[in-house]
């Protein structure tokens, strides 16, 4: 099932990038797809960690929510940058990730990093070390709104 999904999405990717639909190019595309899928299954990465297809359905709403967060904090960081006195208050903090799966934890860590103003600098089990540009950012991460949102997103799988 996952194998089929990977093959279909790879072939669609090939067709979208190529834009020419001759027999030869489609044939080469199918060959490349088969090679990639064979390599992936030999590496045993076609599991729910490497190919979290269950998350795809609820992904758009999560991405939309994440994008709003990114826009808000990017604006905050931009204001700090353009402020003449550069009012930064860099803070290191630790938070606990409540996700159950590796894919969920990776989503949370990447979401923290993707949000301007906070970067995940280390992952130790389910404890994340987070560097924040502003104290407010560290407080927000500690408050755990994003953690709860990612857990909800993960739970829909």
């Amino acid at each position, binding site marked *: 099932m996952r194998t089929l999904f990977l093959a279909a999405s790879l072939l669609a990717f090939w067709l979208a990038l190529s834009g020419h639909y001759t027999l030869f190019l489609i044939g080469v595309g199918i060959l490349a797809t088969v090679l990639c899928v064979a390599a992936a299954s030999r590496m045993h990465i076609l599991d729910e960690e490497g190919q979290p297809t269950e998350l795809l359905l609820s992904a758009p709403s999560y991405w939309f929510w994440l994008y709003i967060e990114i826009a808000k904090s990017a604006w905050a960081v931009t204001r700090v940058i353009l402020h003449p006195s550069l009012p930064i*208050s860099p803070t290191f903090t630790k938070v606990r990730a409540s996700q159950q799966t590796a894919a969920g934890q990776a989503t949370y860590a990447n979401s923290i*990093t993707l949000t301007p103003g*906070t970067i995940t600098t280390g992952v130790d089990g389910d404890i994340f070390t987070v560097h924040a540009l502003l104290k407010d950012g560290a407080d927000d991460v500690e408050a755990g709104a994003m953690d709860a949102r990612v857990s909800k997103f993960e739970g829909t799988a």
Partner: protein
Amino acid sequence: MEMISQAAHAASWVLIVAGSFFLVAGALGMLRMPDVYTRMHAASVIDTLGATLLILGLAIQAGFTLVTLKLFFVLALLFFFGPVASHALAQAALYAGVEPILDEDRRNRTVPGDTANKDATPESPGKSTPTRPT
């Protein structure tokens, strides 16, 4: 129809100008920030908001074609691999012992629900080897 295309044109104008603004602001932040960790925050403004707004503006110009699809592939590339590169960079800098300029260090705070890390020594984390769950 004419109205719609003009509105789309105006919207893409606004998006492209806003994206350009965030690009320059992020790059300026890279110059102004005092150390590597804070500079990474400025760089992530470029990677996220600047790039998205610019690419959205270009996508509106392109209309519904393969070009738009490719623009969104570029965006997906930035959004999936950008944080991976930032994380690797921050971890490498910490590992190499580049000390961050800090206002407040809460790394030794007790994390709610944390039992495994109680007796860990949080000082000089730059030197500690990151342990991975097996």
